[in-house]
């Protein structure tokens, strides 16, 4: 019995994201029973690949899910959010383009191996993560304000790094990362996301990452008294989100084979924070559930795909409906409503107990 209770408590957090994902799925099935059909089609490159709404949700939600991992850790350790991830993706994209294309706008052959471009964009994204991390940990600035700096400057820096031009990469091998590898029917971003999730799950399972971030998030002072270095742990979470930014930026560039600095990954920071919140994580830091955040990310993506498929919803007005759903979700999962529900349940239990007596 106690074991079951502990399990229940552990997974209670996932209830809201799971239920909302389920609700989205059920609504889709009612509106259009064929919504989730999975088909094997031959695409332009001559590969037979899976197609369908599920694949499209998983595929397009990849970047968001990867970012949600980093955002969860930052939120847990610092009690604040990194709002510069979208701008950092623009910088990472600029680095990829600069390394691969040099100063040419449309090079016939790549200037460097792709792995070099990826490592460079990883290094730069981690550098900017380190900048944010330093401001937050050493200078004790609230994360949202510290990252506001890069939020303001990031897209401009990306444009500058990219050489002031919007280059285009036409290498077929480069497009595999955002599309399909020949012979593999599943989109590559999904595979990359699974790898990222596996990496973080292993890290949480076999290292002290979870314990340390949670203790710093819950009470920084007592964490320090217990021999942890809160500064380093906060810094570390910003390095991790830097890696997440690099990976999702790389996917994003590969998808479009170019970077539009002013619009790439626009509002993705907001969606990532939303994913963390929908996943039942407290935005004030402390305990966290990576699974919840990832579910939250896919819930947002599923919601977007669903809304697009509804009649009368245009790409402009989609934000209106999205906002309505967010408000509904957040209100349902607000502490006041939760307490109210548990109070009602307690009362009912008392009634039952009285009847038995």
């Amino acid at each position, binding site marked *: 019995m106690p074991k079951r209770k502990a399990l229940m408590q552990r997974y209670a957090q996932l209830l809201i994201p799971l239920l909302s994902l389920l609700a989205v799925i059920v609504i889709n099935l009612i509106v259009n029973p064929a919504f989730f059909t999975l088909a094997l089609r031959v695409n332009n490159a001559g590969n037979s690949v899976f197609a369908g709404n599920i694949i499209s949700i998983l595929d397009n939600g990849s970047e968001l899910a990867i970012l949600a991992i980093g955002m969860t850790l930052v939120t847990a350790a610092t009690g604040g959010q990194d709002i510069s991830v979208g701008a950092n993706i623009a910088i990472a994209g600029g680095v990829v383009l600069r390394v691969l294309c040099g100063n040419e706008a449309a090079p016939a052959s790549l200037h460097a191996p792709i792995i070099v471009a990826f490592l460079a964009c990883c290094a730069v994204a981690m550098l900017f993560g380190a900048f944010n991390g330093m401001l937050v940990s050493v200078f004790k600035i609230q994360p949202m304000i510290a990252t506001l700096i890069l939020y303001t400057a990031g897209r401009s820096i990306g444009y*500058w790094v990219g050489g002031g031009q919007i280059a285009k990469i036409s290498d077929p091998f480069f497009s595999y990362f955002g599309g399909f590898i020949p012979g593999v029917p599943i989109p590559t971003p999904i595979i990359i996301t699974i790898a990222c999730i596996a990496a973080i799950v292993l890290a949480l399972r076999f290292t002290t990452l979870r314990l340390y971030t949670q203790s710093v998030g819950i009470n920084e002072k007592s964490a320090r008294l217990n021999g942890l270095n809160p500064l380093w742990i906060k810094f570390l979470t910003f390095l991790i989100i830097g890696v997440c930014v690099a990976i999702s930026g790389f996917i994003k560039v590969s998808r479009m084979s170019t970077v539009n600095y002013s619009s790439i990954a626009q509002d993705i920071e907001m969606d990532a924070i939303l994913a963390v919140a929908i996943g039942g994580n407290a935005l004030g830091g402390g305990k966290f559930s990576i699974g919840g955040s990832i579910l939250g990310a896919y819930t947002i993506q599923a919601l977007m795909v669903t809304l697009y498929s509804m009649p009368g919803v245009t790409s*402009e007005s989609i934000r209106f409906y999205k906002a309505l759903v967010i408000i509904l979700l957040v209100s349902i999962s607000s502490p006041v409503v939760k307490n109210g529900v548990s109070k009602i349940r307690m009362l009912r239990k008392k009634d039952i107990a009285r009847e038995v007596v």
Partner: protein
Amino acid sequence: MPKLRFGKGGQPLTDSNLLLVITVSIFAAMYIISMIAFGGGFLNPQQFLNLFNENASLIVLACGLSIVMVTAGIDISVGGVTALVTVCCAVHLQGQGGNVPASLILALAIGVAFGLIQGLLVAYLDVQPFIITLAGMFLARGAATMVEVNPITVTHAGFAALRKIEIRIPGIGYYAKNGNFINSKIELGVIIALIVLIAVFAMFKWTRFGRNLYAIGGNSQSALMLGINIKRTKFFAYLLCGGLAGLGGFIYLLHTGSGAVTQATGTEMKAIAASIIGGFLLSGGVGNILGTLFGVISLVTINNIVVSMGLKGPWWQGITTGAMLCFFIVLQSIIMSRRNGGKAVRPIWMRKSREIGS
């Protein structure tokens, strides 16, 4: 670090006033140096007044945000509400032949409606303000596209007359190319913005509600114990911020004369940045509204400086704005930690009561 002492009684400078002094002196230094280094436009009083003319709505929005930020909250829907207001008022004036007072009421009503819903959710349902006002931003921008996708230029006669109202300041001006002395002008929006600023200043300084805002931002636990109705105070803070966003949207329309969904993109972050530069801390309880005004004009002066320095690349404005923001934020952090005896800035619940308040 010895405490700075000012004025009668030798009272130590409060955190809010210290940050205000820093902001004002940096702005003054920045402007005077550019007057000497670049001359030209910086010596023209009209360019100085244009800082206000072009950013009257930003001043109003930043005032609203300061009210919310002093309670340790945040409202990122203000830019979206501004866009929605410009679109709705433009449609009302242009498409439906409405009149100016009705459009002003419409603008305020939209703002108050957003403030009402967000305030209710934040104060009474205890929802994260960041998330709910983010939803508010999406809602406002989405709704604006549903009202009208295309930009509308307002040519309504009454409104055009209102737009033309400008006040010439006697004695201050510049010599035009033909040798005539032209008095500098300020627009109607600036007058409204300054009235709002003075009203908010008075509210912060002399009303019970204003002091309550500082109290709950500084330490909501002790505010509760003092018998302050935290929920109601927070609710009215968001309501006020929403109303000011509506008014700011109307001033924006007054300045640009066209309503479009893309209006005021990123204004919410500009307003937040202005409040931060002005000395408001996101952790609440600290800040002086006059700082917000200087925050706004510092933020736009840097752009003028970039242009004067001849940096042509489209990326320089973003980078310099970010660098300036970085400078202010780090400076504030260092000063605040020095004041707290060389230690880090303590969290809200650990501060002494002296450190809270204006």
